[in-house]
């Protein structure tokens, strides 16, 4: 049993036991309330730059496999749990969680009061933190922590986006879609394919001109890590697509689209990370239970264009969860209709996207 320490920038410290890779991890500490789906969470590129603690205390019960991946590898900086299971039990399980983390060089700590940590984050807000299995000296860890960059103003998509375009969903499909990879999740791609799209994934730095040249039926703006305010170079390109192609954004994609429509974002106190948030579709008044993973949020008041409509709102804290344009073919949501992990209630949005592409194509023909 090797000791490990988690320290927050405000000096809050928990001692535990290391169970992943040896080392030190720095990042913003956030909690996720999903009770299942830790492997999807680990491999979600949106967690780049973050240390994740699971509020559910028993993690690793079903091990890790090579199917429930949201990208090719884990991205979290560090992983914090109450008790990781030494064995795993599931017919699809391949490796114990600890082995999986060690293989991918993720520092992990168990045996800590994750509820106390969560309460701390809720009360004081998301903070920088450090997990270390090497240096166990509080002062020195605190210094390292304070020297690390925060989330605000940070461009992290360049670290997770693909270097070259690639395709997903071979074979003949009704729609061809270009997907900006800001840290895209496999489940978004799976969902697009299931909705009848063949997808060309392009790097975050792709220009509007290049996208238009591909003549897609629509453009998908993916999720991703970091502060949208730091991504004006992407926002500019999105501006060039608005009105010309149907657009569908998720999470960071939604924030960027909102910025392109003239909006601003702000940082939430401790973010939304989990699979149980109620979101109301203001048009149908129906509530969907949604997967959430974001630290920044769109300020609806900052969008002056009266044609931009709020479509979805979070019933927990009334924050913006979705918008659309009254005249132009575009809509986006803050949450994760692709799930992975999380409920499938919002999966219909992919259908809404294909409907939009279909009617756009029709309009163009006339």
């Amino acid at each position, binding site marked *: 049993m090797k000791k490990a320490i988690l320290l927050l920038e405000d000096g809050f410290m928990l001692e535990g036991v290391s169970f992943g890779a040896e080392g030190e991890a720095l990042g913003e500490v956030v909690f996720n309330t999903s009770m299942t789906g830790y492997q999807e969470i680990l491999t979600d590129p949106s967690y780049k730059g973050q240390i994740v603690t699971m509020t559910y205390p028993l993690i690793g019960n079903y091990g890790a496999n090579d199917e429930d991946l949201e990208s090719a590898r884990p991205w979290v900086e560090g992983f914090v749990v109450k008790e990781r299971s030494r064995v795993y039990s599931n017919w699809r399980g391949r490796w114990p969680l600890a082995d999986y983390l060690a293989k991918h060089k993720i520092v992990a700590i168990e045996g800590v009061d994750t509820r*106390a940590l969560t309460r701390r984050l809720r009360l004081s807000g998301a903070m920088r933190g450090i997990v270390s299995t090497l240096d166990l000296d509080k002062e020195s860890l605190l210094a390292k922590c304070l020297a690390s960059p925060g989330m605000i103003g940070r461009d992290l998509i360049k670290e997770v986006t693909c270097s070259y375009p690639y395709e997903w969903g071979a074979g003949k499909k009704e729609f061809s879609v270009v997907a900006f990879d800001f840290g895209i999740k496999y489940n978004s791609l799976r969902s697009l394919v299931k909705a009848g799209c063949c997808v060309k994934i392009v790097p975050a730095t792709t220009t509007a001109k290049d996208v238009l040249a591909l003549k897609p039926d629509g453009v998908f703006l993916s999720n991703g890590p970091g502060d949208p305010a730091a991504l004006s170079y992407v926002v500019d390109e999105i501006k060039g697509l608005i009105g010309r192609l149907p657009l569908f954004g998720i999470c960071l994609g939604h924030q960027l689209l909102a910025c392109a429509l003239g909006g601003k974002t702000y940082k939430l106190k401790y973010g939304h990370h989990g699979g149980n948030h*109620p979101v109301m579709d203001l048009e149908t008044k129906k509530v969907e239970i949604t997967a959430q993973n974001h630290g920044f949020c769109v300020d609806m008041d900052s969008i002056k264009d009266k044609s931009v409509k709020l479509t979805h709102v979070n019933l927990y804290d009334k924050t913006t969860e979705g918008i659309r344009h009254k005249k132009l073919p575009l809509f986006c949501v803050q949450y994760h209709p692709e799930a992975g*992990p999380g409920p499938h209630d919002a999966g219909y949005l992919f259908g809404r996207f294909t409907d939009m592409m279909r009617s756009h194509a029709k309009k163009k023909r006339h």
Partner: protein
Amino acid sequence: MIIGSGPIIISQGCEFDYSGTQACKALKEEGYKVVLVNSNPATIMTDPEFADATYIEPVTPEFVEKIIAKERPDALLPTMGGQTGLNVAVAIAKKGVLKKYGVEMIGADRRAIEKAEDRHLFKKAMLKIGLDLPRSSNVKSKAGARKAVASLGLPIVIRPSFTLGGTGGGIAFNMQEFEDLISRGLECSMIHEVLLEESVIGWKEFELEVMRDRKDNVIIICSIENFDPMGVHTGDSITVAPAQTLTDVEYQNMRDAAIRAIREIGVDTGGCNVQFAINPKNGRMVIIEINPRVSRSSALASKATGFPIAKIAAKLAVGYTLDEIPNDITKETPASFEPVIDYCVVKIPRFTFEKFPGADPRLGTSMKSVGEAMAIGRTFKEALQKGLRSLEIKKSGLDSVVREKDFDTREHLMEHITQKLETPNDVRIFYIGDALRQGMPLEQIQSLTAIDAWFLENIRDIVDFEAILKNSKMTKELLRRAKELGFSDKQIAGLTNSTEDEITSLRSASGIVTTYKLVDTCAAEFEAYTPYFYSTYETEDEVRVSDKKKVMILGGGPNRIGQGIEFDYCCVHASFALKEIGCETIMVNCNPETVSTDYDTSDKLYFEPMTKEDVLNIISKEKPWGVIVQLGGQTPLNLTLSLQKAGVNIIGTSPESIDIAEDREKFKNMLDKLKLRQPPNGTARTFDEAKAVASRIGYPVLVRPSYVLGGRAMEIVYDEDTLEKFIVEASKVSGEHPILIDKFLEDAIEVDVDMIADGETFVVAGILEHIEEAGIHSGDSAMVLPPYSLGESVIDKIRQATVAMAKELKVVGLMNVQYAVRDNKVYILEVNPRASRTVPFVSKAIGVPLAKLAAKVMAGMKLKDLGFTKEIIPEYSSVKESVFPFNRFPGVDIMLGPEMKSTGEVMGIDEDFGRAYIKSQLAAGQNLPVKGNVFISVRDKDKRSIIFIAKRLFDLGFGVVATGGTAKALKKSGMEVRTLKKVYEGGPNILDYIKDGKINLIINTPSGRIPREDEVKIRSTAIMHGVPCITTISGAQASVNGIEVLLKKDLDVKSLQAYHSRK
């Protein structure tokens, strides 16, 4: 109108009071006028303030119709009263009653209920939405069944349609079992239909609690994984929340399936329980069943998450949508979300096989447990161990149950363990521990039990750590780790050759303090306002201790025979009452089925085991002004001495007085002083002492251990040989306490008295005359208030004796006395210096909330100021009847004795005894006939008294059938009697008559103290075929009165409020 679930029976426990109470409250809050029917007086929901019109009447279609005709409700909510509620609702809908009176069924309508309950319709519906089910075939006859089994193969699952808790169902492993189960199944089904189903024994079993609103928003409240795999009823399984071994992909797949299912079944609003099985080898998922109502699991899910399913279901039923209802716990967020938890919940069933010798102790698809304990911990290991010590079965955690020295060879030991692992039983969990201790490989345990490796591995962690504890020197780190793994101080002491107190002091000296965390529905994502706590060993404690005057109420723990809902009722009342007078109330209990563990019953709720350690930990945190031990039954009472030693202020009757009442010798001295009479008696610690006592007072004698409830291990003994046998048995139960021997009073009338006192004023609350004679446990007898046959002078003697004893004991609060009356002499059988089982019944009969008054008195108020100083003798008659679980234990004799066997009770109220009695019988499911054949077979002693009874039945038009001796006696008095062969004389005998439905009523008193085998068969067969069987002359007399009332066909219904306003 809300339908309650009636008496507590196996598979339908007090969780329906919890749900029903929430529903009543929620609807009243919305300004609806609530009409309630429930025959169970021991429920909170039937307290007059919870509904506008409360009918304590039989929950049968006939009576519900009468109530509807009288009250003309606009809507009927059938989903709160368990299977009983659904069945009655469907029955009256079919009869056209709802249409006739313009009543709308809300929550789930008739079509939805039928779709979920009728296995055939269910299968069709599930296939329609693309869900997989076990292959199956519906049959309506034995011949059809044989054909089906040929194609489905063995083992095979037999499920009767329209029953509850799997009554009459089972798994057949061979053709013999198959034939037996088919006959029983067809018999039990309300529509004589049975589903034969492919067995998926050994698959993983899961449950989801789902809610839907009228806008079709659907949410999952909780997932539950069964520790015991398919084949053991979920009610009998250890279950864990949330599901532990599903990936998100599988969980979401199950969630989608459940959502599709609730939509297809058409439960418009409210809660629904969906059960699934998953093949652990390949993940094939099949749907097992849907309960379109609140259930035992929904109660568990509510307690496990903090989300009040029943309350929300009631609000949804009247038209709210989930997003319009706030989450009480977080206040700011709405109910339209899915609770997440950051702890592990383990529920463990409580069994009472020891009370039913001869019952098949194997667990299967038909439920057998009578209660449950729930425990919360940060890990499965911690929760499991807390749960095991919550059961109160003399285990302090995952204790060892085999003693190596009992086995001559290791092979025999391993054989024994193997056998206990292979067939599911009530103690299997302990044998898993022992198998690991004996080095059995985990894979072998898994293949024997089919329990998921994840659970077994966690148990191995516990066992491994046990070995470390045993073999190392105790250190602070080890002790802390032990506490984190859920080990109790007592358990650690046992493993380290020390005492519980030593470990406790070591723990506090090492600074290892218990921390308390909140159950908040949201894993700390939001601030929670409802103080619902569990203990664990972590770094942060979330309790905020107030400086108000605090009273802690100790609950009764898991329900069991002898200690059930009645005690919870009293605890809840105490909490309500103390809140009224400005105290802060703190409830401690571990029973998830109850109202006491509802988060808004008390100011604070600690969901904790009812052990000395756990209770003292809370006390040292909260430092309450006072602690109440006299309301939760024997469980808290047994803690009295330890609490007192720890300096706790026990309010109410003093611990010294409690000790006088509980300790036979001290008690005897007191009675001598008061010149009160007791049956001749003595105490003994050895067989020799016992022998001497028995020969002094003369046989028959009653032997029993002290400090037990429900007559456990109590027997009437007629000779020395039997005496020896029982001394051995009794000393097992009683531990260090002595064994009590009383002269058994034959043919005496038993009387129960409840009284309340404040140290100055002593008021008799109710005198209840038993219908069955002394010797039948007071918890099993029918009783009537006011007495119907006792003379005024005897009643006066009883009254005076009661008050004299209460004065002597300086009772503050409640006291119960049991008397036996013979030849106008009054004998005191026992005094219980606490709330008794009859408190709720008496409260309802006289219209005075006794437990509330008691709590206020304990907090220092006076009865004079509370306005209760005089005994109330109602003009109407109230009868309490008991309900028994014999239909769960085929082959077990239904004879009653001094050991309690009933699981619940009903109340019948009416103008006179006959009417009240028949109502109690109908409510208890005893379907007394108004015509047909009565079979009579009584012992010689009863032959004279039976003649008059038989004659009345004969005159009422019944055909009389009897065995030889009885027939002879009856014929002499000029009755026409058909004589039947004895069972051993071959057929056709009485058994054939019963099976052919030719017998409508049985009167059978036991021939001797050891029942003859054929008698047992007759009685047991009668139960299985739903033929009422009366085993005492007094019961027979009362029943004939009842039948006469029935024939008059003028039984009416009246609300409790109407009765009470009359007094």
